[in-house]
């Protein structure tokens, strides 16, 4: 039998004692693996749901989107030649509840008009379950039917069967919209959804030139037809079409990207938990091997060489690691089902819950590698235990670092974890940053705790005995201080970081944004309505910062004559080239404009088009004053020369345009106006009512409602991020438990001796409580510092604002950790306090 076979046989004998001595090792691994497996499985369930429902979410195999204008007859004929088509028209509009023929409550809605072929894939859910045709029919009485979301009925106090007006047309609510298969591809919507027929839309009078309307033509391709061929032919036939073509494989790219990004963060948080748990696991292995040192020496005395000794215990530890990893992936695979059970209704994505091998396998590999990385160093040290120790009173614990090949193997496992995390991450730079911060945090905490230990050992002895003993316990060899400060500290740091980030973002949304953002956005003001609209606003004394600007949609198609698709553009500036942007024109420099280069054109300038461009985007696109930009507006290309560059700050919530063009050509294009105004809160309702009463075709967005909606989204996001940091804290507590359990023998000895010389249990408990409180407080303070530093880095670099620290919630989080340390510490040490001295003295 070879050495491996023999080692495996002996390891199996060792395993007869079960998990004894390995509970914390087991728990640490289960926790980390379960967290990673759960996040991976949940993300996979959501992504596969998106992928499997790609056709229904997109509304077809291919969707052609154009803003402002429907497809030309030629384009439509081309789409029809490729398969069955369905056309939808989407826009924002105002709805008014009708009571006795008068307008009552009103609400901004997301309106979608559909033709008879809609939906090409999937089904529209209606309550009662009537056919969509029946639900959208227009009757003899010139009233049309509409399917609306329950939220709209709640907001405008209407029941099914009730009447409402949209534009110039009255509608009867025929059914409640419970499921809209293509909802996700529409992106973020500001109001409840309403579906009507395209015929009914024509009657509303809302379709005006320059209105912000999206036309979607969905195509159901015959079986076997290629999407790539469709794209090629479309591009060949209509090279200048200002449309955007999407396909079933990328039906909801934004949602897809969001799920991937949040899962990267949560997976990395899971990995941090695994790393923190790994510290506990390594400690547990060290404690286990400490108890086994006589046995190791005996094996050596009987002729086992170091390699065999290493193999026996390595196989034992790794067998338990495999069992733990399996338990972890079972738990992790089950968590998404629990999420579906309790929160299924709140998940906006058609998730496909199931067992996904890839994320489970990845979590398993992470678990095994981390077990190896943290267990090999103590095993390598144990390999060096000499047999001669058996003839002395005590076999000395393993010392030194172990041999280089073993340490290299442990380091290799660590590198493999990082490499895997990076390879499977869709965001390499974010993952690198996160791992660097977590790694740097661990090293910094370890160094600081070592420095504090060094300083404490050099303090003059405290006069108070309990404090003296507590400090001595904190600094003696093998004390739990360093491990606890490092491991629990990292979890608490993460929690402090998340809490501060949450405070900062909430402050920005709830405090700063209302200060700078206007109270209302008014979209689609028709030129003919503009003077009356201005008067309506002027009627309100508290109205200030009123700004009405022309709004035209257009795409940047070339930079200095180079097509945008081929131009070299920095990654963070690419978004400005994807799809349509809002463009305006202005003769005079708008108020509060900060020019960074060039000059504004003269007020009466009517020459070739000049452009005022966002300075940051210009940097990303390599553009400067004097360069040219070509924009496609309603199918016509306009080339302009950059006259100046501006600072654009989107965080204020005010009107901001990336592109402002000089008048002369662009103002001839059909367009509507966008207006913003700030009014005193007391006038908000009156202004809302006045505008919506007089201008039913204008979509009125109340910023306060948007902020509330945003706040809700942020709250949900913060919850998942906090849950991730709690997993890390739990891992830190396991390290704490393992560190205290490892020192239990010494505690038993101490407490016995102290009792013999007259100490009461309460006195001993006070000493231990003081020690744990000092460790907890130290950990908390360090975590607070580290958390504040990390949060400050993120807020300053990413959000470009200083961090907002709500001290009460941060202190609560950190104090909670410290209190947990004391409670857990005393609970584990209880057996040492409760032990009878006589019994212990016989064993000592």
């Amino acid at each position, binding site marked *: 039998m070879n050495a491996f076979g023999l080692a495996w046989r002996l390891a199996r004998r*060792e395993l007869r004692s079960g998990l004894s001595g390995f509970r914390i090792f087991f728990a640490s691994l289960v926790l980390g693996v379960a967290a990673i497996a759960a996040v991976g499985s949940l993300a996979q369930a959501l992504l596969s749901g998106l992928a499997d429902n790609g056709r229904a979410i997109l509304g077809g195999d291919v969707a052609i989107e154009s803003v402002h204008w429907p497809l030309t007859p030629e384009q439509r004929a081309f789409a029809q030649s490729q398969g069955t088509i369905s056309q939808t028209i989407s826009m924002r509009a105002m709805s008014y509840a009708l009571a006795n023929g008068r307008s009552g409550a009103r609400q901004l809605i997301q309106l979608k008009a559909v033709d008879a072929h809609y939906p090409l894939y999937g089904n529209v859910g209606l309550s009662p379950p009537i056919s969509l045709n029946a639900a959208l029919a227009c009757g003899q009485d010139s009233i049309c039917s509409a399917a609306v979301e329950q939220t709209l009925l709640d907001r405008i106090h209407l029941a099914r069967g009730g009447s409402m007006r949209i534009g110039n047309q009255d509608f009867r609510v025929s059914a409640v919209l419970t499921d809209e298969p293509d909802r996700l591809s529409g992106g973020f919507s500001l109001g409840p959804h309403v579906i009507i027929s395209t015929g009914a839309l024509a009657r509303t009078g809302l379709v005006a030139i320059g209105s912000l309307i999206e036309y979607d033509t969905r195509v159901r391709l015959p079986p076997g037809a290629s999407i790539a061929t469709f794209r090629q032919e479309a591009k060949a036939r209509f090279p200048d079409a200002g449309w955007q073509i999407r396909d079933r494989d990328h039906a909801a790219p934004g949602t897809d990207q969001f799920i991937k990004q949040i899962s990267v963060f949560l997976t990395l948080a899971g990995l941090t938990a695994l790393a923190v748990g790994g510290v506990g696991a390594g400690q547990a292995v060290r404690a286990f091997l400490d108890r086994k040192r006589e046995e190791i020496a005996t094996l050596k005395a009987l002729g086992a060489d170091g*390699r065999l000794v290493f193999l026996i215990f390595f196989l034992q530890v790794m067998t338990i690691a495999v069992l733990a990893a399996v338990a972890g992936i079972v738990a992790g695979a089950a968590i998404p089902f629990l999420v579906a059970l309790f929160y299924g209704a709140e998940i906006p994505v058609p998730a496909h819950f199931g067992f996904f091998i890839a994320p489970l396998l990845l979590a398993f590999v992470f678990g095994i590698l981390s077990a190896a990385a943290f267990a090999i160093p103590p095993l390598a040290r144990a390999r060096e235990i000499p047999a001669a120790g058996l*003839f002395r009173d005590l076999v000395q614990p393993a010392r030194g670092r172990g041999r280089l090949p073993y340490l290299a193997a442990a380091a290799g496992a660590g590198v493999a974890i990082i490499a895997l995390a990076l390879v499977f991450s869709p965001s390499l730079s974010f993952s690198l940053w996160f791992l660097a911060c977590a790694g740097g945090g661990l090293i910094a905490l370890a160094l600081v705790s070592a420095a504090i230990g060094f300083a404490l050992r050099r303090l003059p002895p405290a006069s108070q005995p309990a404090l003296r003993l507590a400090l001595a316990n904190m600094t003696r060899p093998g004390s739990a201080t360093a491990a606890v400060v490092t491991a629990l500290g990292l979890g608490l740091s993460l929690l402090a970081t998340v809490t501060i980030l949450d405070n900062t973002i909430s402050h920005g949304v709830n405090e700063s944004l209302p200060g700078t953002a206007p109270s209302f956005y008014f979209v689609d003001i028709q030129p003919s309505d503009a003077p009356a609209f201005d008067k309506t606003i002027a009627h309100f004394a508290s109205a200030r910062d009123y700004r009405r600007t022309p709004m035209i949609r257009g795409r940047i198609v070339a930079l200095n004559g180079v097509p945008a698709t081929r131009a070299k553009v920095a990654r963070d500036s690419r978004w400005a080239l994807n799809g349509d942007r809002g463009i305006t024109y202005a003769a005079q420099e708008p108020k509060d404009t900060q020019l960074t280069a060039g000059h504004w054109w003269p007020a009466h300038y009517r020459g070739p088009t000049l452009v005022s461009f966002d300075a940051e985007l210009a940097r990303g696109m390599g553009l400067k004053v004097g360069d040219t930009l070509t924009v496609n507006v309603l199918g016509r290309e306009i080339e302009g020369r950059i006259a100046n560059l501006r600072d654009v700050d989107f965080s204020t919530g005010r009107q901001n345009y990336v592109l402002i063009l000089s008048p002369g050509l662009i103002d001839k294009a059909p367009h509507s106006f966008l207006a913003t105004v700030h009014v005193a809160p007391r006038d908000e309702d009156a202004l809302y009512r006045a505008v919506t009463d007089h201008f039913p075709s204008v979509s009125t967005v109340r910023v306060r409602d948007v902020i509330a909606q945003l706040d809700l989204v942020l709250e949900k996001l913060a919850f998942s991020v906090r849950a991730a940091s709690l997993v890390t804290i739990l891992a830190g507590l396991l390290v704490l438990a393992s560190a205290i359990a490892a020192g239990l023998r010494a505690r038993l000895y101490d407490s016995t001796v102290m009792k013999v010389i007259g100490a009461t249990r309460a006195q001993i408990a006070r000493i231990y409580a003081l020690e744990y409180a000092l460790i907890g407080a130290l950990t908390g303070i360090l975590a607070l510092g580290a958390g504040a530093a990390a949060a400050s880095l993120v807020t300053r670099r990413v959000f470009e604002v200083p961090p907002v620290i709500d001290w009460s919630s941060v202190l609560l989080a950190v104090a909670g950790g410290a209190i947990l340390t004391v409670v857990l510490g005393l609970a584990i040490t209880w057996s040492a306090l409760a032990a009878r001295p006589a019994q212990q003295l016989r064993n000592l």
Partner: protein
Amino acid sequence: MQESAIVLDDVQLTLSSRAGPVNVLRGVSLAIPQGESLALLGPSGSGKSSLLMISAGLEKPTSGRVVLAGTDITSLDEDALARLRRGTIGIVFQSFHLIATMTALENVALPLEFARAEHPFSRAREELDAVGLGQRADHYPGQLSGGEQQRVALARAMVARPRVLFADEPTGNLDTETGAEVAELLFALPARLGTTLFLVTHEEALARRCARILRLKDGAIVSDSRVAAAA
């Protein structure tokens, strides 16, 4: 001349301590012929256990030469020494040092398994029978009395038919009656196989059952005598 099982040539052992270096063994020279039984007597701290460890290849001398079963072990590394021990020596400890997670049979088979010997378990069972514990083969150490544990340890030490049996205070943790039973086996088994016995003890009576008695004081041999009628 009869072949020597152990040869020590001017062996010195100096250990460092906080108080400074301690000379544990001071130039010990010794030859123990194959098959001889030798008792090492001396007060606590005289260097008895250190001399045993050096002879068994468990400790390296500071200077001098050690030959065990014809192999100069002075320059062998830790793992080479472990491999040499497998078939060459057996050790019985005062505290038994059985592996708690293994049955008596598995404990006894262990040296054979390390040596990749054939049929380790049937040979281990024979050895347990020889110490009178055949019926306790499947018991774990925790289920055995002190005397039984030491008999298992003796079976484990002898199962590979070693050239030398080292015994460090083998009856030190046992009561008189049990100690006597173990002592009987301790002398009978090596004698039957021609195994050299290197016994470290405090007990004069036990020592007198050996053919030769060495007395050690402050790390040096102070007397080396033969016993008229060894057991």
